[in-house]
């Protein structure tokens, strides 16, 4: 099994006629994801790599019974795209777009939750349930089917960890990149809960970084609710305060959000923290 996406997921690609949307639509389709359609206003009726294109998400959902959507539209239109998906009845919305204004995300998120849907991203690489479904831009070749759940705020650092997991024979149930912005959708707490409840997941790798206090709250949540082994890596120990480290959300403000605090929080509840990403597999095995 897996969380959030599987073989049954019916995906549409919002912005399928754009450069990135088209490229990744084909990649996802190639991986075996059930890509049932795409949207691009004014191109309804056309095809993109054999995938039917619709003018609106509502049309796409009506015709294809899609339940999942991935968004590749430019940042100024991302809020509208997220809300369109939610309004049309999409239940999992994955927004890849980088650089979306924070208040746009706040508004879209509030609306999405009201519609009973879930959001992943924006500014994220999406998610993958290896061997089943890819919704996003992750390089599929490094993943393998298995039972470790991966949650991460970062893209390539996730790949680094997954690469190490796969190399040690530890496949992944689902790997989720939650996104590097200060405000994004599903986060540690919700995903830890899903992995804890997923019978096919037997261990969880959590990759954090500086900024905010979500890791601290994740540590508390693990202490109270997670029985499966968790191993953690936190990036940004050398980050100077007040500087955005690439991700809009990776910033130490007013002395809080440091890597040291986060590491201490996990260690305090007995969750092992890796010194380098390559230690994650061993830390998980040792606790299994």
């Amino acid at each position, binding site marked *: 099994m897996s969380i959030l996406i599987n073989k049954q997921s019916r995906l549409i690609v919002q912005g399928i006629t754009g450069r990135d949307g088209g490229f990744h639509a084909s*990649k996802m389709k190639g991986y075996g994801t059930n890509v049932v359609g795409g949207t691009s206003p004014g191109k309804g009726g056309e095809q993109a790599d054999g995938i039917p294109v619709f003018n609106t998400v509502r049309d796409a959902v009506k015709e294809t019974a899609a339940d999942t959507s991935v968004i590749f539209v430019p*940042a*100024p239109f991302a809020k509208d795209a997220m809300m369109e998906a939610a309004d049309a009845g999409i239940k999992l919305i994955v927004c890849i777009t980088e650089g*979306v*204004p*924070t*208040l*746009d*995300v*706040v*508004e879209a*998120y*509030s*609306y999405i939750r*009201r519609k009973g849907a879930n959001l992943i991203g924006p500014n994220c690489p999406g998610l993958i349930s290896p061997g089943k479904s890819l919704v996003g831009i*992750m*390089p599929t*070749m*490094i993943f393998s089917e298995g039972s470790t759940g991966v949650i*991460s*705020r*970062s*893209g*390539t*650092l*996730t*790949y*680094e960890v997954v*690469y190490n997991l796969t190399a040690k024979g530890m496949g992944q149930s689902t790997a989720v990149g939650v996104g*590097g912005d*200060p*405000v994004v959708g599903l986060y540690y707490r919700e995903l830890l809960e899903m992995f804890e409840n997923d019978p096919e997941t037997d261990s969880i790798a959590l*990759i954090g*970084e*500086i900024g*905010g*206090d*979500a890791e601290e709250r994740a540590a508390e949540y693990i202490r109270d609710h997670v029985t499966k082994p968790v191993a953690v*890596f936190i*990036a*940004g*120990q*050398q*980050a*100077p305060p007040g*500087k*955005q*480290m*690439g*991700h*809009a*959300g*990776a910033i130490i403000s*007013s*002395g809080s959000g440091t*890597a040291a605090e986060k590491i201490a929080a996990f260690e305090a509840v007995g969750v092992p923290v890796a*010194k*380098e*990403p*390559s230690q994650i597999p061993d830390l998980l095995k040792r606790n299994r």
Partner: protein
Amino acid sequence: MKVHEYQAKEMFAAYGLPVDKSIVCRSVEDAVKAYEQLDAQKVIVKAQVHTGGRGKAGGVKLADGEAELRKHAADILGMDIKGFTVDRILVGQAVHIDKEYYVSYVIDRSSKAAILMLSREGGMDIEEVARTTPEKIHKFVIDPSIGVPDYLAREAAFTLFDDIALVRKAAPVFQKLYKLFVANDASLAEINPLVLTREGEIMAIDAKMTFDDNALYRHPKTAALNEPSEEEKKEQSAKSKGFSYVHLGGDIGCMVNGAGLAMATMDMIKLYGGNPANFLDIGGSSNPTKVIEAMKLLLGDKNVKVVLINIFGGITRCDDVAQGLLEAFRQIRTEVPIVIRLTGTNEKEGRALLQGTHFHVAETMGDATQMAVKLSK
């Protein structure tokens, strides 16, 4: 993006928020003119710099009479506060303060919304208050679909005031501040302190605003107020090329694809006893021109003794990355040793292409880091 107090106060005034009467000045002469215009015996002189703690640094002074004003203005103008040179001061009518309060809107990651924060402990370092007496801070999560209705503004005002007359005065202040916050895509709108004057009026005597960089494209007027420091200029120029760059001061230059991996790389350099010169995320693909630009940036830092390139080949395969690196380094002449670590899709093919070149090629992050640290000694 930050703006100065006086700029924030102009925005406050435009949204009908009560602010003290004040004038920004660039010289002692300006300050004297402002003093006459303000027509008050006592005025406050405040350094306008993009950093906190100006009070402790001597950047805020009360002047009683013109002579004192001249003296303070002259002292503060040109002063260095945490690396910022003061080139503007704000001269404002001194207000008779009865009580001070803290009010701000800020984006809260956890509730994924703007929150209104209030405290009767105004004029203090609010992080300090949050740490020592968190019960003295009141928080209201704002539902973006309804904003700050009258009842919520009133509820908030009751946390600061017991007198209904003051509640009625404060509530619209919170509503206007929220409007300003949202309409301008702020990430912080802070009044510290909001004061109750001896005359019973409510007034913002300091104002702080920062803005969401991702939203500046729709606020050209705000964007025009940007005054980057030398370091920020470098970061912004890197950004315009598609990089994220932060200077750190060590001697091992780093070039990495992806922010998380870039942070992990600098952490590992430190772990193995080296000193990272910078954080540099060159983003998704790694075409030759991008690599050339990145190398220029790294080699512009004269402290850099070795460059560590850490690339995880994902969608872009490692062999393509290697080709790109080879092409780029045909055009770059440098004596600085280059360590390359290349992993991911088609990594073997990629590494094979780099064999026999002057690059130090490594397989794992650990190996690459150790090589770089050794070369830097």
